């Protein structure tokens, strides 16, 4: 980011709660280490207050798709100009292994010792339905590919989403599965909803079929903050003008 010209002070990282969120402590940049599931609204508030900030939200699947799912949907719906990076290990790891919204059915965790009885949901489909303007997926072990996606998501004006498939060696080690089945999909027209949905529906977060990676969907539209901040000018706040209307 800094190499391509963003001033260091304008970079901010907002994290959630989970192993993934500890990145706030590791990076020497502005950060806000928020409440579980609530990192996205904090980032939105920050962006509205200072639109110059380039904000990255790091959060896990439990945060984004369980505790904080309403915020994920609405920030996409608002096209809030934040870069959401979902570190998806498909389990609540820091709390020692419970199932999340995207765990495979049958996951044996301490809260579901006989195996989870719920089918997972497809977060990328939810994001399409929420009018997200940038949807992509990468894999932690394909570093260069992932790096390109993150840089592109930062360049995108508006809500951007990068899902990072990230094996958890302690609680759900699906590294072998991803190594075998994850592939870099080629999308010649990211502005096509149809093509995006086709790629998004290829994998249902349960089956062991192939998992496409890459930029699935990208369109341009005004961001929430640029529209909301239009009312703000350099002029003085005029209380008296408001009071006139009340006599």
């Amino acid at each position: 980011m800094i190499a391509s010209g963003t001033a260091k002070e304008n970079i901010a990282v907002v994290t959630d709660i989970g192993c993934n969120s500890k990145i706030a402590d590791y990076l020497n940049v502005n950060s806000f280490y928020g409440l579980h599931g609530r990192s996205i609204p904090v980032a939105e508030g920050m962006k509205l207050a200072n639109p110059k900030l380039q904000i990255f939200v790091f959060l896990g699947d439990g945060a984004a798709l369980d505790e904080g799912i309403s915020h994920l949907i609405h920030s996409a719906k608002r096209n809030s100009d934040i870069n959401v990076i979902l570190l998806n290990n498909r389990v609540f790891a820091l709390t020692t292994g419970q199932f999340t919204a995207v765990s495979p059915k049958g996951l044996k965790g301490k809260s579901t010792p006989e195996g989870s009885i719920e089918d997972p949901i497809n977060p990328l489909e939810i994001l399409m339905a929420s009018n997200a303007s940038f949807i992509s997926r990468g894999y932690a072990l394909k570093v260069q590919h992932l790096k390109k996606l993150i840089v592109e998501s930062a360049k995108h004006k508006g809500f951007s989403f990068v899902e990072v498939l990230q094996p958890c060696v302690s609680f759900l080690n699906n590294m072998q599965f991803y190594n075998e089945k994850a592939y870099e999909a080629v999308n010649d027209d990211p502005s096509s909803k149809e093509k995006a949905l086709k790629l998004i529906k290829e994998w249902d977060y349960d089956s062991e079929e192939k998992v496409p990676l890459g930029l699935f969907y990208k369109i341009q539209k005004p961001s929430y903050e640029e529209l909301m901040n239009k009312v703000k000018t350099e002029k003085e706040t005029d209380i008296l003008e408001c009071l006139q209307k009340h006599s």
Partner: protein
Amino acid sequence: MKKTKTVPKEYSILIGGAAGQGSRMAGLVIAKIFNRMGYNIFIHEDYQSLIKGGHNFSQIRASSKKILSHKDEADFILALNEDTIKKHKEKLSKNGTIVFNQDKISFEGGVGVKIETIAKESGGLSIMSNTALIAAFAKIAGIDWRTLEDVLKKEITKGVEKNLEIAKKAYASVESLAKIEKIKNKPKPLLTGNEATALGAAKAGLENYFAYPMTPATGILHYLAGNARELNMAASQLENEISVINAGIGSAFAGKRTMVGTSGGGFALMTEGVSLAAMSETPILIVNSQRSGPATGVPTYGGQSDLLFSLSSGHGDLLRFVAAPGDAEESFYWAGKLLNMAWKYQSPAILLTDKDVSESTFSFDEKILNKVKKEKFSEWSGKGEYKRYLNKANGISPMAFPGQPGAIVKGTSYEHDEYGISTEETADIVKMQEKRLRKFEAMQNEIDKMKEAIEISGNLKSKKAVICWGSAKGAVKEAAEDLGFKVIRPIVIQPFPERQIYEALKGVSKIISIELNSTGQMEYVLNGCGIEADQRILKYDMRPFTAEELKIQLKKA
């Protein structure tokens, strides 16, 4: 020469109808007519939780003296529907007059006006029949046409000509039965508590407001959204209260003065955010406009039952600022003051108000504007390495914001070291807990020195004192002052102004606690500093006090 007590000029008007009939708007226009004639105004709104049907009414009080509560006894009852007469005719004063819509209501006595016919004959919309009612009332009350015309011209935004035509006809159709005199007073702006809260915060530098619609706080969102350009700020409606409080904290963390607003249930959702504001030391002003609780309660009616909840909101060892205004001027002042204090101490602050302040209309003295401005706060010097939670003696770490060159600003919900990096070490934990404790001490000291943290009024030498808070101000002061009691009213409730209260209670041998809840929550707070009430007057039918009913109860004290 014996000084004769001047009897104030006073009028009480009740206007009612079904929801959707426009009684509130009509009531406000009538209030503005009286305001134009120099009267002080108070309007109490009683409306149900529905959009059409049911029964809504406004009780307008116009007086030559300053008033902050309504009178149940009405000199005029204006009825848009029959229900209004049925429900309120007992309130009519001895020489009072009922003015009613004769097109829909048959009633013996009073003055019937065919307001719908008049509107129809002039080719106006049916809602314009309300103008006919206002005009007829004005004539009956002996108010001159010029005043009526001026107010109508200012208040009506659509179809002014048509409305004036209708008003003229209705005015001519009835006889005057009274003569309401003008008073030599400059008309003041009329504001609801919500509007005053919005403006007070704006005066202290508010730039972002977030909210989720919830009665009775929604008026703040509407007002700020509607005046965003004039006030140079953004009002955002978000998906739920949890998003609201967290976005509010993000906005403040990034350097902009921010306020959020809600009512009981919404505030309950925000409490984790209160805790976050305390741990991350982020300034945030939260307006909790109480409705009747618990749970959904009686949504469009007021009460004072969130006090203890507000005082202990947010898990963990923390202190908040909590202040309870009693009218519109205080709402303006304390919204501004709390915003400044939140920034000075990097703390959550709660403006604890309620429906009867939020949605009542008050005469507003502009003098209060000069008392509120954006005040300084501890800012980073820009030199050396920046530590967000620098361990200073007074507990307040200088603030820098993300985007400032040279500063790495790390805010967090975790316990942390001075840089804002998470910690589990005992030494770090104790250091930060004690830094915050010193800050809390500084907050208490500030309140100890703050004269306006409580209001003392009435007979200062009386051995009998009433203690009340928030919206009970108007009725309690009027009743108690009339009967010669001392009135002690804490406005700041956290930190509690103990010193000032003890001082005020010197020489008092009987304490009567008055509030609008069923468990005596302020008493509990008083007990916490060793003060016991001898008597309590609790009201929990979810209607505000009137001075009349309190006088009856206080006479027995």
